[in-house]
């Protein structure tokens, strides 16, 4: 090994703690990039393979009742490779050992075996075509209830209570993410899927020779929009509820949203770490070169060329980069494994096709090494400019001169040790700025990650405390006259009942259209209300519709414009209504109108198809029992349960993510403050030792070192808050999907927590460096000049 290389390795060993601190920051960037991209790539591959192997359909449509031969007609639409029809309906389920009713969606299995959306049998067998009472259950639902093959459950099918026998457990590419209708979160305990043979389903629902659910598989070059339009036209006479592509299929859309968020994370976070790491390399290498200036002079005197000397220090920078990249790869893989495990369980992929993220490895390595080298360039350049004779002299004392700032400082009558702190910052503003930037970046990352809690809390508050204050919502099997609300009051424990009416619609503005629902709001509703993100209760006026921002945006429509609403259920009216208001609503997808205006426009009598209930908490069991025996009810939402699911799902996933970000944020703070303090100590050990000689105590001398770092930390905190504000805003943009927008509101608690975490990390780091001050030998420190 060449002597210079040996020197490099020894230099590296000498500053190992600083190198490690930089490598960890750099590694965080690499880790997030590799972890998120490997996870994303794996999930995308797994999803694609799952879809392919189980022939996940491309276009979906519902109808009230269509003759079976529309399926053959649909197969003839240009671009359609395959068409399949089935019967699908909601049912209330009664499961032994479960007080409240569950609900489920029953899907018919064609006698010849399904051609699209193939169910994957995990356990047991599929229902026998000759047995009318057999069902296969979705695995998560069956697993939670221990409904093994042979177990029995009861279901209200078309108003009739039926005994059903379980034959097996099934997974389906159609229901990777299973959302109960009207819910916000999957709820495997209270909602399941049941596959039943076609003849039995048709008999139960009185649908012989008819279908109400159609799926299409398209050819490679098909025009999805044209197919959807043709299918809509085909189903229109049969109560078609609007065809849609994968993008609007709930399970697919949520999975895609998750994948999109992973991509956003991979693009969004690493640059912050890489920039901080570049500055740190610059700082540390700059100091090392300053310390070695006499050696550089000597090397030059010995005949080493500029390129060799520059190469020597750049190699050191590169080595720091290599350590960071390797550390990042290791943790990235580890994180990817953990995340793939989490997602795999959550989505219940039957298999995982691991993608090692080779692309991410290469990109992260290039970025990581480039970061280290770019960070080192300026420091290396300064070493080259020194003529050898000058380089071999000790550096001139740093020059301080009086400026405007000194007059201000002078007027403050500060102690001289405090003055030293201020002068040091003023004398090296660039270095102070790097520390400031680094620490504020860590505050920013923490604000951004804790903000996620705020967002979820606000979402929860808005949905559960403001908008939906009912304990239970009953979904009626069919619309009923509004007198049904009075009947609901007679159910056990019901304190208040309010009707609601919703109908599937297609919103149309010019060439843009969107499948959604319209909600009719009754006057004086107290339980379920329309609330915007600011917590304001919105009451739709007597004319016109209120739209949430996302829907208005999708339709490119503004208040004052006219919206065409095509009702997708009988009597299939087409309304033209003015948009009276566009409101901010993170989860809002539906159009809102006063019930009276809706009924008048549709020319129908007042009716309800949902009833919201306020219930005495100790009578819930009685209510549940009564509802199980009420055929008019097709399903129900227990909002306490919905809230529990919401909190459980989010808190599990969020805690992991926020935990990782906290570690990352704190690592940046440690990396920056530790390095800055070490450099301070190295540059000023002579000066600080002098103070000790003059009779200053360890604490007083420590104050100069700790004081400067803590002052910078305190200054960085408000900057970090500002940075965090913008990062959170960017995150909202990157994470928002078509289905939902994160509300943007950061609480004081988040700002305070971020500041506290960074303050503690910075204090710990600087105190670690301060301890080295105790080890400085006073007598030798004064003799030795750099």
């Amino acid at each position, binding site marked *: 090994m060449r002597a210079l290389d040996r020197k490099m390795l020894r230099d590296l060993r000498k500053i190992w703690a600083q190198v490690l601190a930089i490598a960890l920051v750099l590694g965080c960037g690499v880790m997030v990039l590799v972890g998120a991209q490997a996870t994303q790539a794996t999930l995308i591959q797994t999803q694609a393979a799952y879809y392919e192997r189980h022939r996940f359909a491309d276009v979906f449509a519902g109808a009230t009742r269509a003759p079976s031969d529309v399926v053959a007609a649909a197969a003839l639409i240009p671009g359609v490779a395959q068409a399949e029809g089935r019967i699908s309906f909601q049912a209330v389920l009664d499961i032994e050992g479960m007080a409240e009713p569950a609900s489920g969606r029953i899907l018919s299995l064609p006698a010849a075996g399904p051609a699209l959306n193939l169910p994957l049998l995990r356990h047991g067998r599929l229902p026998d075509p000759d047995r009318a009472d057999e069902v296969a259950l979705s695995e998560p639902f069956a697993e939670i209830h221990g409904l093994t093959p042979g177990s029995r459950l009861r279901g209200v099918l078309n108003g009739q209570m039926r005994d059903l026998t379980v034959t097996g457990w099934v997974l389906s590419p159609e229901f990777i993410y299973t959302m109960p209708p009207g819910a916000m979160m999957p709820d495997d305990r209270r909602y399941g899927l049941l596959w039943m043979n076609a003849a039995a389903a048709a008999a139960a629902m009185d649908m012989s020779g008819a279908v109400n659910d159609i799926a299409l598989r398209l050819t490679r070059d098909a025009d999805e929009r044209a197919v959807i339009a043709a299918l809509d036209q085909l189903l229109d006479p049969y109560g078609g509820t609007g065809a849609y592509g994968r993008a609007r299929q709930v399970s697919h859309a949520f999975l895609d949203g998750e994948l999109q968020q992973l991509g956003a994370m991979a693009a969004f976070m690493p640059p912050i770490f890489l920039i901080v790491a570049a500055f740190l390399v610059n700082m540390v290498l700059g100091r090392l070169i300053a310390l070695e200036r006499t050696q550089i002079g000597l090397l030059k005197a010995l005949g080493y060329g500029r390129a060799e000397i520059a190469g020597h220090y750049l190699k050191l920078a590169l080595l720091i980069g290599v350590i960071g990249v390797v550390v990042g790869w290791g943790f990235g893989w580890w994180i990817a494994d953990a995340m793939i495990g989490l997602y795999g369980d959550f989505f219940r992929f039957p298999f995982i096709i691991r993608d090692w993220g080779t692309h991410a490895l290469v990109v992260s390595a290039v970025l990581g090494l480039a970061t280290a080298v770019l960070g080192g360039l300026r420091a290396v350049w300064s070493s080259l400019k020194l003529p050898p004779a000058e380089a071999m002299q000790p550096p001139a004392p740093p020059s301080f001169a009086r400026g405007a700032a000194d007059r201000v400082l002078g007027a403050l009558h500060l102690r001289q040790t405090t003055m030293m702190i201020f002068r040091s910052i003023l004398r090296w503003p660039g270095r102070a700025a790097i520390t400031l930037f680094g620490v504020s970046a860590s505050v920013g990352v923490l604000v951004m990650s804790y903000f996620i809690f705020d967002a979820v809390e606000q979402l929860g508050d808005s949905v559960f405390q403001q908008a939906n204050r009912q304990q239970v919502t009953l979904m009626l099997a069919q619309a009923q006259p509004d007198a049904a609300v009075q009947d609901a009051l007679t159910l056990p424990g019901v304190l208040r009942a309010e009707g609601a009416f919703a109908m599937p619609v297609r919103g149309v503005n010019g060439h843009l259209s969107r499948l959604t629902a319209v909600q009719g709001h009754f006057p004086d509703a107290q339980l379920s209300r329309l609330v915007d993100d600011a917590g304001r209760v919105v009451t739709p006026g007597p004319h016109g519709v209120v739209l949430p921002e996302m829907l208005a945006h999708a339709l490119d429509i503004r208040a004052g414009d006219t919206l065409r609403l095509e009702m997708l259920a009988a009597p299939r009216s087409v309304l033209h209504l003015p948009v009276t208001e566009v409101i901010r609503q993170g989860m809002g997808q539906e159009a809102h109108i006063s019930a009276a205006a809706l009924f008048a426009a549709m020319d129908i009598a007042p009716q309800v198809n949902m009833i919201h209930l306020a219930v005495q908490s100790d009578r819930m069991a009685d209510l549940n029992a009564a509802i199980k025996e009420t055929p008019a009810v097709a399903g129900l939402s227990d909002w306490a349960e919905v809230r529990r699911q919401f909190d459980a799902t989010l808190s599990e996933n969020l805690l992991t993510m926020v935990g990782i970000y906290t570690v990352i944020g704190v690592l940046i703070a440690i990396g920056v403050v530790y390095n800055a303090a070490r450099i301070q100590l190295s540059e000023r050990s002579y000066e600080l030792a002098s103070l000790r000689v*003059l009779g200053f105590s360890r604490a007083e001398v420590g104050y100069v070192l700790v004081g400067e770092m803590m002052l910078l930390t305190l200054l960085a905190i408000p900057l970090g808050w500002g940075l965090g504000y913008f990062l959170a805003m960017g995150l909202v943009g990157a994470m928002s999907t078509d289905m939902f927008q994160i509300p943007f509101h950061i609480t004081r608690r988040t700002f305070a927590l971020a500041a506290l975490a960074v303050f503690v990390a910075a204090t710990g780091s600087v105190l670690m460096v301060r301890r080295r001050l105790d080890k400085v030998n006073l007598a030798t420190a004064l003799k030795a000049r750099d």
Partner: protein
Amino acid sequence: MIQDTPTLPVFRAEGVTRVYQTGAVKVWALRGVDLSLTEGEMVVLLGASGSGKSTLVNILGGLDLPSGGRVFFRDTELSQATDRQLTAFRRDHVGFVFQFYNLVPSLSARENVALVTEIARDPMPPEEALERVGLAHRMDHFPAEMSGGEQQRVAIARAIAKRPDVLLCDEPTGALDSKTGIQVLDALYEVNRDLGTATVLITHNASIQRIAHRVVVLADGKVVRDDPNTDRVLPAQVSW
């Protein structure tokens, strides 16, 4: 300090040894030094490089502890003192002047002196200390704006501003040419004469011994000569 009892001992060193262990090698810097210093006295400490001068002064000044023997400052035994006690001792009783000045570059001359007066018990105003060393007109200059001699005089002003009992100077003229060196010696001489501060002055330069009350010579970690100087002259009369 009032110089009414000129023979009272300020420092007393008894059989002081100091061994440095570097790896397997033991280096004996001091091999049993006995020495006392009385108030108001100016002692020049002569000796070749490595003779133990700096080690002795560091021990007297509370920067280092002896490996063996005892050191007293008045009635206090320094050789048994804790770090905290040594810090207090330096703060209250000792002024140091070093070859390389050891000024804080980010503080002006006045502020460098104020650094000490802010923590001392009975300091003189920084302006007075700087006036004594002839720098009244350079008070607001930063170290980088001053010559070596000026920087050393600021260091002397900083050392005397706390009215120390003893001034320990390690090669104070070592980095200076003879003209500025003599200005610095002048300052030390006047402080010793006017304030009665006991002064120990380490030097390589044998000519400087002529301004002392007493000359102590060290060789190989031992005192080999300790004689009063009967023929004391002013710094201006010294040349090298």
